[in-house]
């Protein structure tokens, strides 16, 4: 093996030298990653193997460390959204909205109900895309490519809705302080309604393909199980924690953006294994769909899409060119001349993978003094070596994809 990836004086080398199995076979080292095709992202794990069985694992991360927190200290507040996009790029609107809500908490801005509902819709769409990716890739890893090809068509449909709302597909940079940059077009609602009509049939089929599938059950039940206690100690949140049977959901515990107006259940699993994680995500997709329907039904009349806060809300470009007041506000916001209170804020939302928190410290200047991201992936990925101990190599891959570790969020 290359010395680049595994230094010769590794502790596993010593274990191998000392231990010999009864039948005379030796232990071996396997280097999984950082660019292994089966790991969907760049994680390196050095595995100590006894045949097919994993005895110990040593993870190395940081292969796409991009210094988000350092960049954030050098950027004005409204330029930090593009960073949050690139953190969990499977569900970027949640990250965007979470950042705006953090700032609104800092500045005590009340967002109109309609904008809050629009936010709920887009956040739930993002949760659906996140779970589509995770579950369909789990299918690919257990040998079912069909499911992936099938449900990805619907992910494209969600992207079309995003495009209609903000113009971008993946890294959306959506919204403004206090709401959205523009009202949603009728086309966006039309696409959304078509999606709501067509997607349930597809997702039902996807579920049928897997949930009672013998091969899938054999590959996932009791694989990578984690108990509720140890999941909590490892800082699990989100679907992975709920699969272990703990019904903690930030949307319920600390409702933001009017989540208290909607009725939904928090699906929980029992054993915390890969199958439960899969089922919890499936069930969450149904709940998300129901939340979107409720939000559409309860949507207040009118076309309010942002709060009336000219000090912070970037005015529309046409006003900037035609209207002096708008130009002044635009200038003041862009040049960072708007005073920001000195405060410490922690705001958490339920991201695709768990509690996504922003810890923001301001000192009154145009950039944050310190911005720390509580990234769920980073915190729960440290349980991975513990979870794959004693498992087979092929199980390790399945466990990793069921945890839905997003490299961008992991390494920040």
């Amino acid at each position, binding site marked *: 093996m290359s010395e680049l990836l595994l230094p010769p004086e590794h502790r596993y080398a010593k274990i191998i030298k000392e231990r010999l199995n009864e039948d005379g076979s030796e232990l071996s080292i396997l280097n999984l990653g950082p660019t292994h095709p089966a790991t969907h992202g760049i994680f390196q794990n050095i595995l100590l193997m006894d045949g097919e069985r994993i005895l110990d694992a040593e993870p190395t991360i*940081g292969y796409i460390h991009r210094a988000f927190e*350092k*960049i954030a200290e050098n950027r004005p507040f409204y330029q930090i959204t593009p960073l949050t996009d690139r953190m969990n790029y499977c569900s970027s609107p949640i990250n965007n909205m979470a950042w705006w809500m953090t700032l609104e908490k800092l500045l005590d801005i009340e967002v109109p109900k309609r904008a809050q509902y629009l936010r709920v819709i887009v956040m739930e769409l993002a949760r659906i895309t996140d779970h589509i990716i995770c579950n369909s890739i789990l299918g690919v890893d257990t040998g079912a490519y069909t499911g992936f090809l099938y449900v990805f068509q619907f992910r494209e449909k969600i992207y079309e809705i995003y495009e209609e709302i903000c113009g971008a597909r993946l890294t959306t940079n959506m919204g403004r302080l206090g709401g959205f940059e523009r009202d949603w077009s009728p086309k966006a609602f039309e696409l959304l309604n078509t999606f709501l009509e067509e997607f349930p049939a597809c997702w039902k089929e996807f579920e049928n393909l897997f949930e009672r599938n013998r091969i899938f059950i054999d590959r996932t039940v009791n694989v990578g199980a984690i108990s509720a206690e140890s999941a909590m*100690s*490892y800082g699990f949140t989100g679907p992975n924690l709920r699969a272990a049977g703990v019904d903690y959901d930030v949307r319920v515990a600390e409702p933001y953006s009017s989540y208290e107006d909607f009725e939904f259940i928090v699906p929980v699993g029992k054993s915390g294994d890969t199958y439960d994680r899969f089922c919890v995500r499936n069930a969450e997709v149904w709940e998300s769909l129901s939340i979107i329907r409720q939000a559409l039904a309860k949507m207040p009349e009118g076309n309010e899409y942002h709060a009336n806060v000219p000090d912070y809300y970037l005015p529309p470009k046409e006003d900037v060119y035609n209207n002096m007041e708008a130009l002044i506000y635009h200038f003041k916001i862009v040049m960072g001349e708007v005073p920001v209170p000195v405060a410490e804020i*922690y705001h*958490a939302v339920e991201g695709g993978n768990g509690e996504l928190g922003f810890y923001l410290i301001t000192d009154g200047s145009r950039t944050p003094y310190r911005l*720390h991201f509580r990234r769920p992936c980073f915190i729960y990925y440290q349980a991975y070596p513990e979870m794959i101990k004693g498992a087979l190599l092929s199980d390790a891959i399945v466990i990793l994809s069921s945890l839905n570790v997003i490299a961008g969020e992991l390494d*920040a």
Partner: protein
Amino acid sequence: MALENTQIQDKVTETFGESVMHFRQEKDIFTFEVSADKITSVILFLKNEETLNFHFLTDVCGIHYPDSNVNEQFAVVYHLHNWIENKRIRIKSFINGETPEIKTISNIFLSANWMERETYDFYGINFIGHPQLKRILNMDEMISFPMRKEFPLEDSGRTDKDDRFFGRTPSNC
């Protein structure tokens, strides 16, 4: 009955006296400071005391205050959460700028392990008793601690961007 701030304050001051201070409500989170040598016992107390029951460690991170006096140049911030009462608290601990060190809490919460490694990686804060305190995100060969305020954001060795063409001087970027 919901868990009140005063209740937490009373309990903690009763047990730790002078070592806990500056109780305050910061926006929606109750915050207080702990002297660095008592951090493990305070967190253990908050976790195990039955009425408090802060059983979930949400976050650990560091902050650099280069302009403060030398004993308060770094802070380590802990966010704890009691899911049953749905109460969050924030604990801050200021430490010395020249030899930043604090005891680890990775034996209390397993999740603290990587969060402390990340804090070490960014700020060079030494967590005493940590099982494997080494860099996590950056390369092992790196010598600087990049999140300290004195280190620049951009790579100093880059050759592709000439500051003169961007109107930048050391003072304005």
